[in-house]
């Protein structure tokens, strides 16, 4: 492959690649453009003026759906999922560097979680919380606490069942990234640190953590963006309130104005902002690590 002249296959494959990228991004670009449709415009071209009309409509809420509240719920859940994914995946990644009883089983369970049809997981969690509710209600009843019984709705919610459902989706990705990181990790750095008298905690805090920090940022991004867009696992395990993508899915069959494109633009902008922020943070951490190593 060292010769300068490109074979014909290169141009054919480059064309396929170009078409594929167009196929990936073309439709998305179309709805970004259409979300700035004028007040008189419809769901398809032509554009009838350019305005922020549909973003304003979106902010007022769409029918019975409070978009702003769903937006806040999704951000809150995404942030919590992100934090827990980083912590738990880091812990598991460190554990997997050593042999421990059941490590093989744990690995296969998390891979199973990744490829398990989401509707099955969602049904299971929904079922579990329904049984918890039944048990809790009968316990309150037999305990004579019927006052509490009236206030009791369901244990299902954003930070119970939905959080659990999201973690079954984000943690396997986190673990796979941590395993890949530690597979390429040179233990000589830690050994050098402990030879120089660092306590175990010091060598983790000052040697291992700075080296893997950029990857942890990546794990965090997976955590947030996967949670931010998750539908299938959340669907049966959320209870009375909805996350933004669930509201969006419901709106696809009822809303017939460009406001839905405006909502699409908003959620995509959030995804891109998180990706951009992650990229910037990773670069900054790497640059800092490089300076430290050079100093």
């Amino acid at each position, binding site marked *: 492959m060292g010769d300068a002249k490109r074979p014909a296959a290169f141009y054919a494959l480059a064309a396929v690649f170009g078409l594929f990228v167009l196929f990936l991004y073309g439709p998305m670009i179309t709805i970004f453009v259409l979300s700035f449709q004028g007040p008189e415009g419809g769901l398809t071209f032509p554009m009838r003026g350019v305005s922020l009309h549909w973003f304003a409509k979106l902010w007022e809420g769409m029918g019975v759906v409070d978009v702003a509240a769903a937006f806040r719920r999704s951000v809150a859940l995404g942030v919590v999922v992100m934090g827990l994914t980083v912590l738990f995946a880091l812990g598991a990644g460190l554990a997997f560097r050593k042999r421990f009883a059941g490590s093989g089983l744990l690995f296969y369970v998390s891979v199973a979680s990744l490829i398990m049809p989401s509707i099955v997981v969602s049904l299971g969690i929904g079922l579990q919380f329904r049984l918890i509710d039944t048990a809790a209600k009968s316990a309150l009843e037999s305990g004579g606490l019927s006052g509490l019984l009236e206030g009791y709705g369901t244990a299902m919610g954003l930070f119970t069942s939905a959080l659990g459902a999201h973690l079954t989706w984000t943690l396997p990705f986190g673990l796979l990234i941590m395993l890949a990181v530690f597979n390429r990790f040179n233990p000589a750095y830690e050994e050098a640190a402990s030879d120089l008298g660092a306590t175990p905690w010091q060598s983790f805090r000052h040697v291992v953590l700075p080296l893997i920090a950029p990857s942890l940022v990546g794990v965090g991004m997976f955590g947030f963006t996967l949670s931010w867009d998750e539908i299938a696992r959340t669907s049966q395990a959320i209870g009375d309130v909805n996350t933004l993508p669930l509201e969006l899915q419901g709106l*696809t069959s009822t809303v017939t104005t460009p406001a839905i494109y405006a909502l699409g633009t908003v959620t995509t902008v959030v995804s891109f902002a998180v990706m951009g922020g992650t990229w910037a943070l990773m670069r900054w951490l790497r640059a800092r690590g490089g300076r430290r190593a050079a100093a």
Partner: protein
Amino acid sequence: MSSSPRNAPAWLQATPFALVFALFLVLPLVLVAAVSFWRATDYELIPAFTAQNYFDIFSGCANTSELCVTLKTYLSTLKFCVLVWAITLVIGFAVAYFLAFHVRSVGAQTLLFILCTVPFWTSNVIRMISWVPLLGRNGVINQGLQAVGLIDAPLEWLLFSDFSVVLAFVHLYTMFMIVPIFNSMMRIDRALIEAARDSGASGWQTVWNVVVPLSRTGIIIGSIFVITIVMGDFVTIGVMGGQQIASVGKIIQVQTSYLQFPAAAANAVILLIVTLMMIWGLTRVVDIRKEL
């Protein structure tokens, strides 16, 4: 080894991670299996042991003259599965091959790879509805075809049809093929390609006899992802099929929303068995853990 994270008991570090899967994956699955044998009234679940839920699913399936609803639904889901698998495999392989073997600088390779994966981190529903202005009755494609005079009336089968479902699946999930296949291809020793060429192999022969066998792991991992996603799907088929096309996942979703838990659980168990058999066949040939 004396660093703290290495000294702390490994099981302690893995406990939060393991607890999540025990509480939100293993226990729910056990409950699904158990409840699939329960009975239910309109408002409560009754612990029992009955195979009635399974009989109900297959009722009428002994009839040979006409397919029962369950088999029809599975066949329809399998049809999507095979179509999407074949298309994503061909596109995914071509794209990964281009990136791995034809893009020469590492910088360009990374950039183009990221270009392919970025949409994965954006909303699937948005990516689905973004086809509406293109495929709709008055969409770009129909307007274009009518303007050139190729058709007189708008094509109806473009949107909310089998076609749009397959299109959306390919659009959403080709990434799951590209990443593992690309990963496998990057591990292929370039000397092997040279050797094949020096021995007189044509381009096609090299791809078929050297690259494909050595990318087998990536191909299988990608296939597992695509097959399990399509088998359990209800969101894509729902939105892109205009809520008119049946799928196994959709049956489970509808039954759950009507609180028919035992019936939904029995369907979930069957779906799981079918999917696991498909994966089992594929994993016979590969150990995922070696590939990281």
